[in-house]
């Protein structure tokens, strides 16, 4: 997410680019970033449970197809 510092090595840059591409691909099919979700839950609701990746994935899948609120175009 954050741009790498200027002295970051090429490998780190490639890694960041790959991560961003993977995030884009996941979001394109309705799955937001899991690490970000975990970070958010830990920071804002430290005493509440956090879904496992499997549960998170299922929850997002049901949300994407579970209502009319997510139209796709022609």
């Amino acid at each position: 997410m954050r741009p790498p510092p200027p002295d970051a090595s090429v490998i780190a840059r490639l890694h960041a680019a790959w991560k961003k591409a993977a995030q884009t691909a996941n979001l394109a099919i309705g799955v937001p970033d899991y690490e970000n979700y975990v970070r958010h839950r830990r920071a804002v609701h430290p005493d509440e449970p956090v879904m496992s990746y499997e549960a998170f994935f299922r929850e997002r899948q049901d949300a994407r197809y579970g209502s009319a609120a997510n139209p796709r175009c022609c």
Partner: protein
Amino acid sequence: MNTLLSRALWLALSIFGAACLATVALRRGETINAMWLIAAAGSVFVIGYRFYSRYIADVALQIDPKRATPAVLRNDGLDYVPTDRTVLFGHHFAAIAGAGPLVGPVLAAQMGYLPGTLWILVGVVFAGAVQDYVVLFLSTRRDARGMGEMIKSELGPVAGVVAMAGILAITIMLIAVLALIVVKALAESPWGLFTVAATIPIALFMGVYSRYLRPGKIGEVSVIGVLLLIASVIVGGHVAADPAWAAAFTHDGVTLTWMLIAYGFAASVLPVWLLLAPRDYLSTFMKIGTIAVLAVAILIAAPELKMPAVTPFIDGSGPVWAGPLFPFLFITIACGAVSGFHAMVSSGTTPKMLANEAHARPIGYGSMLMEAAVAIMALTAACILEPGVYFAMNSPAAAIGNTAESAAAAIAEWGFVVTPELLTQTAKDIGETTILSRAGGAPTLAVGMAMILHQVVPSVASMAFWYHYAILFEALFILTTIDAGTRIGRFMIQDFIGSLYAPMKNTRSWVANAVATTLCVAGWGWFLMQGVTDPLGGINTLWPLFGIANQMLAGIALIFATVVLIKMKRERYAWITAVPMTWLLICTLYAGMLKVFSANPRIGFLAHADKFSAAIARGEVLAPAKSMAQMSRVVLNDRIDATLALLFMSVVVIVFVLAVRTAIASLRSRLPTAAEAPYVAVKDAPAAA
């Protein structure tokens, strides 16, 4: 110094773009290279984005980067997530891009490449991208609410209900016309049908894999899925070559229609993880990947455009679809220039993830420019074909007969030279028995894509492989629209009936689910069957209805945007949405009037119905109908289509009248009356939910 340099560069780009555009527009009598068109389009997009969208952002909307967005205020890590703008751009583009921008421009190519190109370029900069951007912005300022709800709160409950009913009707029409394209592409094509049918077991396998074997590992299962898809294209070639297998996968349009109806029903009621979701993954990745590959291939191949700039068919006599350039070109190319459905996407999930108001410009305006680029690519792919081949593929059998010889003769009369040998050779090259009357745009685009890809990498695969790969790519994401659309239609129907009879609202009830799904499938299935059995090819009738519906939805979205600008006391800038709104209302209402009332039976539904009912009264059977029963069905179809067109028109007129009333009231008010969510500065935003 820097600004001087940048000004000089922008000036140079403008001159370059104008020169390319002039070449595209003015060169006559000789073929031109597609690069002129691509370069002209690219310059227009860049200049439109840099200047016009920035003007809209800074002056009209007055974007406030310090204002917290719903994603920030309600951050829950799930629905509301402040998202990197590049990542969100990908999401938004994947949601708006579909078959529309690929098919419309191909159909519009019957008038030559110039009319379609100009409408895409002007339309996207001043209408399509503006709509997507402004709606995204307005939804972001309204807690990321959907189009229906926003219309209700800004224009009143009546407008809200009317708009929602219109949206449902349009969804059903959209599914029907897209399904028709798939049927047209797969009828009598064992290779095509096998590969597309193979996507069902592949999706089921992926569903089980990502649910139980390796839960949530979408990346790896998608790679496996895409490899299996490519394998299925190769196997399909062998299936088509084997007489027994080929017979098993050769079906006519009516049989395919019933298959699709059964599929749509099943996919909509089955658990989503099993079929719907994995198919969605496949189609999303294939779509983006193939579009990228095609873009690169066009740049490398730099093909010549064989279609003339303008054909004689601008007078409305064309065989692909009936009606003169104005107003019908502007409803034939819907997506790619301006598409009402995008207003639904722009007020759906995207505003819930917008990290900052300032990102709405690249995501809303930028994604739509990218979709216009896809439309230009589709237009290019159709126009590199020999015009004779294009017309042979897209004209109904009623116009060109059933043999290569009759087709070549009919097309020669229209002034395009083509030999029967070229038609049969092209069919052979792409591994099909015939290319005649394969209406609907998808096969034409597939031939164009196959020619380009085969030219760029001749040794990798045959034309036939690329053709069927392209068919698979189109059919796959159309089928995803059909099943996801059926599900969305089902929810809308449940919502509607649920407001009259509460138990129908329960989306978990099996009975409610089955009833609503049946209604939705029956709705689009009826229009699909009408299109498939229509001797004039169906596209002729249904595509204009779809185009009118989609552009009217855009009209409604722009009406809404204009009223909100007035309510915000920015009436000075309301022209930004009011001008495209006016244009769309003129085109759609005029086209709708012609479709219903034109005295020309080729265009007007009622005139066509009268012609057939007069023949019934005389006891005559008119071609292309073959029996009295068919005759009566033609009449019934025409009357239902006319009713539907009138329904669409009344929806838009009612919304417009209510909007004028609201606008006058807000002009009289001295204070802004728009219903925005309260202002919260980014620095004061709570840590969120």
